[in-house]
């Protein structure tokens, strides 16, 4: 449809970055996020690790969508971003109210739901 927007790489058929490399990067970022959630004690850093995991999944969704020629991947990423924004707002509000009640963000001391 738009010849001038067609990327150079697609026309020349040269060796590009394969899909695998995007997936490897995404897997590494996701594992970093898991490590942060499991190991760190600061609730805010745990929260940031969750954002990192969401982003790792976003990267692999966009990569799959662009390599397979399907727009659904980008749509999913769009909705994930909306959910992440909502989650960040509510989660940080929860952290603020927890801090107001317990004067700490250490998740080991936040055990009031433990029976």
């Amino acid at each position: 449809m738009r010849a001038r927007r067609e990327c150079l790489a697609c026309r020349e058929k040269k060796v590009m970055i394969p899909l695998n490399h995007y997936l490897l990067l995404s897997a590494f970022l996701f594992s970093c996020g898991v490590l942060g959630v499991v190991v760190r004690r600061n609730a805010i850093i745990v929260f940031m690790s969750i954002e990192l995991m969401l982003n790792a999944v976003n990267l692999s969704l966009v990569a799959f969508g662009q390599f397979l020629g399907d727009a659904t991947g980008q749509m999913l990423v769009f909705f994930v971003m909306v959910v992440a924004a909502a989650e960040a707002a509510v989660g940080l509000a929860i952290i603020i109210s927890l801090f107001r009640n317990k004067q700490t963000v250490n998740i080991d001391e936040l055990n009031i739901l433990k029976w």
Partner: protein
Amino acid sequence: MTFEQGVFYSLAGVTVFSAVMMLLQRNPVNSALFLILNFFCLGGLYLTLNAQFIALVHILVYAGAIMVLFLFVIMLLNLGDDKRLTEHLGMRMYLGIAFSVGLLVELLYMFGFNTPSSYTQLSPASAEMGTVEFIGKVLFTKFLFPFEITSFLLLVAIIGAVLLAKKKIVQ
């Protein structure tokens, strides 16, 4: 090494570096700054995938809105190098590291090395698909209902955030 490869590998290197540094920092402000660096590099990676709209929205929403919110909360709570937050190298931490590394190996094996290697370049349609025009067209036709539902989700999030963070009025 072509130009595209150079851009990709340098961006990927900085992404990995900033993700690891985010985990290692003790001060949450430094962690947040490294995460912002990570988000900018991810935006660049989206550009290498010809996803311009997603790249822009990613930078706007994550680096612009979410991380500002994080930094705002960190500074509001005035969390310095809190001694009570000192991470202990306990049994649980070693177990956590072991499981994370196990997950990493599993994911690398599954995705990285088992994917068919025929996908070596972007689909010819990808340049067209990343544009705002195309995304808007799909978003307002095929995905109209989920799009409308997200507005409701955002409304719920606004109300929830205000309700949770509001100070209780003492009678």
